[in-house]
């Protein structure tokens, strides 16, 4: 059956450079002496550390626990001793450090016992909790927790499996599909059953014929509901929304989740991780990383999470004129400023860059309004207008022109004849807007604090007044008892009662929050969302939350 495909607007066709690294099978990267496992998994969530320095851990042992909505567990990728829990630089645009568990490996690679998980006879929520505790996140780059995506409810018709891998140079998904199509498709079947979808569409760019063939071959025996669909090679066809569009025709607007439109998208690497977690009880301990670019031996390496980039690089033997390294693809990747950063679950590729391979951009020229950028924009934006408003700091206008619909795919900058680093301007504008929002939030919090202080002062005043009144009443009562006019006794009693009542009221007001003492019982699925709020993809969510095209 020939699947009808849809077109997404815009897009570009950069040289794919896949051949460099796609020819060699995936090799395991050697066990490094030290693993630095980040506790932070995404922009919003940090796992809680449950080990202590000096403690010996086994491979697969849980060392970090999910503690909030978007949290997932973290595991020791190999056996060894926890030597430190410290802040360490991470590969992130912000350049911020994050809390990491540093493990000195003992070379035994001894594992905790792992057992298959019988998801067929378990209720859905428990299965999702299990995946969360196996640390399964999106392996396509965004590292969005899979159990959250899976939890977004039923009524989903189609599971989209993302094997497009549209970013040039990266081949980890390509190799994974060639070599482990079976595992991927079994994982996809589990995912499909978990979201209750009727069919699965696996989109693979047609520049990967081997991967397509392998997947088609494997699909035959596994799940008749899976269809392997070659899609035209055009960046960013691997963007989640672009791929959904190509395969189903559905356009999911910015800020909306696929589940609302009956589709849900997972990366092939994620499907693979789900398969390993369910079938072998193995949490996410490693991932395939492409090492390519200006290197002697490009290839793909099965790399333990937490392996330092500089420990990994010698495997590919970078050439002498390499001047920097890019984590991710050349369209959306991040130039590493620190090579000691660890490989995280979303780190898919490291490209050695040299001035010859990635020449610096020619000098920036004025925008000539040629609209080449608009023709290339997959989000349907007018990038030059965004550029203009970002540059002139007219952020309101930039938002009017849908700045936050920009997925930072870089297509506009790629085609711009004036060599304007357009995406930099958008990042700048977005961060300025976030900063302003934070400021507004901070100031409104300050106002709240101020109002609370006023309230407290008022309350204290009232209490003082009440105390004084009570005292006066007491004195009066005493005087009455000491034999003054008997008619006063009643008054004194009244005053006493009034004062007591006033005290009681004050006490009540002082502790408004305490309504009872029913301490919440810890619930194993407490952090498990049944339905992610729309907020998870709200309009000004930092980019980490967006699925990145790759």
């Amino acid at each position: 059956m020939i699947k009808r495909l849809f077109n997404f607007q815009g897009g570009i066709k950069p040289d794919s450079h896949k051949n460099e690294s796609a020819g060699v099978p995936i090799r395991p990267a050697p066990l490094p002496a030290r693993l630095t496992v980040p506790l932070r998994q995404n922009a919003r969530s940090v796992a809680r550390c449950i080990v202590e320095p000096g403690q010996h851990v086994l491979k697969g042992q849980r060392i970090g626990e999910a503690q909030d909505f978007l949290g997932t567990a973290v595991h020791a990728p190999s056996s060894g001793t926890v030597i430190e829990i410290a802040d360490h630089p991470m590969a992130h645009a912000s350049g911020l450090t994050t809390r990491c568990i540093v493990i000195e490996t003992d070379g035994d690679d001894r594992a905790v016992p792992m057992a298959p998980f019988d998801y067929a006879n378990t209720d859905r929520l428990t299965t999702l909790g299990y995946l969360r505790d196996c640390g399964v996140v999106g392996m396509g780059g965004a590292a969005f927790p899979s159990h959250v995506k899976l939890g977004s409810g039923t009524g989903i018709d189609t599971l989209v499996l993302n094997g497009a891998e549209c970013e040039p140079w990266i081949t980890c998904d390509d190799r994974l599909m060639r070599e482990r199509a079976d595992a991927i498709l079994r994982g996809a079947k589990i995912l499909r059953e978990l979201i209750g979808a009727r069919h699965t569409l696996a989109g693979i760019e047609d520049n990967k014929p081997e991967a397509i063939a392998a997947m088609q071959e494997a699909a035959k025996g596994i799940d008749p509901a899976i269809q392997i669909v070659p899609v035209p090679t055009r960046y960013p066809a691997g963007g989640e929304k672009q791929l959904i569009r190509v395969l189903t025709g559905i356009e999911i607007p910015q800020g909306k989740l696929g589940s609302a439109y009956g589709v849900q998208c997972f990366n092939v690497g994620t499907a693979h991780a789900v398969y390993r977690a369910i079938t072998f009880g193995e949490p996410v301990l490693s991932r395939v990383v492409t090492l390519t670019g200006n290197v002697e031996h490009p290839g793909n390496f099965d790399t333990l999470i937490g392996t330092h980039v500089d420990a990994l690089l010698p495997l590919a033997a970078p050439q002498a004129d390499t001047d920097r390294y890019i984590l991710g693809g050349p369209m959306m990747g991040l130039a590493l400023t620190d090579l000691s950063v660890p490989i995280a679950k979303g780190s898919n590729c490291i490209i050695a860059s040299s001035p010859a391979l990635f020449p610096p951009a020619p000098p920036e020229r004025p925008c000539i309004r040629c609209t080449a950028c608009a023709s290339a924009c997959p989000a349907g934006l007018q990038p030059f207008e965004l550029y203009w408003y970002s540059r002139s700091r007219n952020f309101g206008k930039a938002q009017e022109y849908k700045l936050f619909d920009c997925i930072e795919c870089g297509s506009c900058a790629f085609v711009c004849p004036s060599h304007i680093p357009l995406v930099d301007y958008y990042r700048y504008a977005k961060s300025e807007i976030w900063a302003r929002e934070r400021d507004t939030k901070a100031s409104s919090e300050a106002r709240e604090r101020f109002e609370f202080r006023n309230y407290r002062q008022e309350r204290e005043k009232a209490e003082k007044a009440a105390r004084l009144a009570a005292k006066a009443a007491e004195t009066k009562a005493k005087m009455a008892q000491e034999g003054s006019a008997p008619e006063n006794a009643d008054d004194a009693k009244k005053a006493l009662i009034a004062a007591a009542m006033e005290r009681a009221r004050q006490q009540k007001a002082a502790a408004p929050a305490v309504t009872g003492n029913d301490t919440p019982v810890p619930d194993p699925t407490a952090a498990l969302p049944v339905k992610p709020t729309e907020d998870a993809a709200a309009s000004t969510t930092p980019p980490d939350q967006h699925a990145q095209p790759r």
Partner: protein
Amino acid sequence: MIHSPYIRKPTSVQRVMLNVLLALTPGIAAYVWQIGAGILVNLLIATITAAAAEALVLRLRNRPVKLAVSDLSAVLTGWLVALAFPPIAPWWLTVLAVLVAIIAVKHLYGGLGQNPFNPAMVAFCAMIVAYPSLMSQWPPAGGLDFGTQLQLILGGARDLDAITSATALDALRTGLRAGAGSVEAIRQTGTFGMLGGRGWEWIGLGYLLGGAFLLARRVITWHMPVAFIITLALVSAALWAFDPARFAPPWFHLASGGAMLAAFFIITDPVTGATTPRGKLIFGAGVALLAYLIRNFGAFPEGIAFAVLLMNICVPLIDMKTQPPVFGQRGGRAP
């Protein structure tokens, strides 16, 4: 710090401009073949003036000179001025026009990318107002040898009426206003060819070829030329059907004057045109409609330059009102 993307398409402003200059060559070749080589002299004068003016202004504005002059945008403006002007315009007229275009229209507004008005068209309008007679003396196709053309350009004595003629648009208009008979009768005279002005049809064809090249190279999008040509054809067909004795047929309008040059090279100037797809359609159609009205009812035989300037004024409004829907806003499953 350097940010993504780390790769770029091998393109530049210079390449874009070079493509446009290249696309003009078939039209220029037809020009030389039909009218004579005088146009080459004017093109040369315009090129030198444009480059010198650009360099001078950039120098005064303390901008990198070499980079900006080598982007060829000024040269393109110069070429468009030369091609819009009579090929026997005296050298100083071309120089003056190019100076106006580069200094007053482009750089006083901030330089490349900033000017709201099409520089070549402002220069054209300014000169037609200031020197109406010089701007309306055109050599008849094949009527002047290169020596005479060169002499005229370099400022030789002008025995005007003997050697020059009006353009086809001008001749038709004068003829109609003088009551010299119907459109068909007037079009029998030597100024006219099969479709438009004699010889000019071929030049128009050359520009059309160049335009196709630009479309194929994606230097321009189809919207403006298509909207321009269709609108011009439709309005002229409507009035021609209404009264063929007073209104020329659509092919005459399309093949005469600067219609083809405008369709592919002038209205498509990115800096001063509309930018959204629908906006481009409106812009192209607007220029065609206004140009047609001016040709038939206005004070000048050729109205494209004025029409372009009028539409330039509307660009911000057009752009604002025609913002295309973004991804996900078009709704549903439309293919």
